[in-house]
């Protein structure tokens, strides 16, 4: 006997969330590559310095990408207070008993793949935990990055940022640079895990979060939903 499979079309991610996600994804990629090159320039070429602006160009790209990241982060931050259910910080940080049960289910399904892998309306439980740390890391990279940036700017406003922004770091600019440098590896490790789990889910469950993050919609089989997860179908 064939069973009837019910499909739900969910719309978890608003346009601002999608925009901020892809702007962040692209700008963090640029920032990681240029940041690594600024920290460890692998080149040194002969020639007249007046003809070449390689390091300057890399730094320029880093700063431009940093402004994009800041804009996307501020958009996301704001949208977390006014946006749809799934984009709210209150939802993101709702770590109650059911949440932890779902998180445990997800870990067990990863450790022992015979167990069922459950789907959710929006973010996965472990992803929610990870994203909170990612947003903290983005916030810290923006703050520390602008303190370093301000140290080379000489308008009164930037001087204010450079002088007082340094206080939380013990008035030590090299220490800011050191911590800022570490973020590269945090994001590198995160990107690997993040992309892996997205691909993993797409292969295992035949539905993709990438679609949801691109177009906003994802199609879920009702029987795959986690216990107690409510989804409003839009189609």
């Amino acid at each position, binding site marked *: *006997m*064939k*069973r009837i*499979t019910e499909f739900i079309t969910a719309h978890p991610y608003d346009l601002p969330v999608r925009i901020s996600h892809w702007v962040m994804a692209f700008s963090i990629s640029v920032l990681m590559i240029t940041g690594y090159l600024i*920290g*460890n*320039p692998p*080149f*040194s*070429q*002969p*020639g007249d*310095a*007046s*003809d*070449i*602006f*390689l*390091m*300057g160009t*890399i730094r320029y790209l880093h700063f431009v990408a940093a402004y994009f990241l800041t804009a996307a982060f501020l958009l996301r931050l704001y949208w977390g207070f006014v946006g749809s259910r799934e984009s709210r910080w209150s939802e993101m940080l709702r770590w109650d008993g059911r949440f932890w049960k779902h998180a445990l289910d997800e870990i067990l399904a*990863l450790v*022992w*793949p*015979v*167990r*069922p*892998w459950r789907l959710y309306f929006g973010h996965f439980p472990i992803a929610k935990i990870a994203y909170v740390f990612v947003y903290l890391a983005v916030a810290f990279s923006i703050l520390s990055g602008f303190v370093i940036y301000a*140290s*080379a700017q*000489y308008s009164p406003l930037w*001087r204010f940022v450079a*002088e*007082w922004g*340094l*206080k939380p770091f*013990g*008035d*030590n*600019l*090299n*220490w800011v*640079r*050191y911590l800022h*440098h*570490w973020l*590269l*590896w945090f994001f*590198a*490790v995160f990107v*690997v*895990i993040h992309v*892996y789990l997205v691909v*993993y889910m797409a292969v*295992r469950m035949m539905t993709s979060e990438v679609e949801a993050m691109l177009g906003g919609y994802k199609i879920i089989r009702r*029987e*795959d939903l986690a216990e107690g997860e409510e989804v409003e179908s839009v189609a």
Partner: protein
Amino acid sequence: MSAIDVLEKLEEREIEELNRREFFKFCGRMAVLLGLSQTAIPRIARAVEKAARDGRPSVIWLNFQDCAGNTESFTRATAPSVGEALLDHVSLDYHEVLMAAAGHRAEERLKEVLKEYSGQIIVVVEGAIPTKDDGIYCTVAGRTAIQILKEIEPHALAFVAVGTCAAFGGIPKANPNPTGAVGLERIIRSKPVINVPGCPANPDVIMAVLVHYVLFNRLPELDAQRRPKFAFGKKIHDTCERRPHYDAGQFVLSFDDYGAKQGYCLYKVGCKGPVTYNVCAAWRWNMDASWPVKSGHPCLGCSERDFWDRYYPFYEHIPKTGGFGVEARADDIGKVALGLTGLTVGAHALYTAVVKSAERFAEKLASKAEEGTGESEGKDEGGEA
């Protein structure tokens, strides 16, 4: 002028007529350093002359946990030569290294000065101040550094902390800081403290702080770390003559390579210029002769807080990360972490594939054994195989 001459002059305390040309050279230098226009030069000259004529500001120079390197630096102030500075522009009434008096006579002189010039003394402090065990790790004439400072504090107009030790604790404060050394700003609460960090501090900056007071009758504008803005407003990297090579991406990779001969940027051999505020690149040392980066050595960041701990290693520009057995570089640890993550997800993908194949294989076997509907379509993932 040699130090012996200085001492002789101090002993005689004779006030000499300054060489006019040298005097204006000095005034010009100070105008440049303080960021004033050319028209300020006569004003500086008049103010300094006036100060020299009637009531020069009294200066007391105290040495605590130091190497006297800032005194060395001060005696190399380019223009005016140190003798002129001591005798004409400011009255250096007490300086343990330079003064002729010694022992009880010196301490008496200090007491006299405190009484005579109370409220208008600029106290220059060199060296960190130990606080552990009641500060017994630095005593002068049987009194600790803290006691001496507390005694002088009510009589002082302002304090100038010269050198990184006096300003931020410097090398005595370096980990593990056995004497509990701190910078002057942690001791002096009721009077302004001006930090002139550097190892040693630039002599012309020390002079300019004093001249600023003589000229405007107030102390120079300070930044959030109490450093005079005229000298510590810009980073070395942003005033460096090698900067175009940085922007071009031309680096010295080792101290004997082609780039080193060409004068390329010292970033990759650990230059801390990008994170160090000081005046070196613009103001240089030893009669404008040179400064570290010009002579091919990376900046150590000596004028920055905790440079001995946080700006180390000197020949790599990112600090080491402790706690990994050996002092590893952030990038090495990061690459290993990234590699391990890659291996983990790869292994997990493989593992899942194997388990899932086995599951499907078992399902097939089961369905064959049952001889039922054949294909088990849409089977629940959670169903037992």
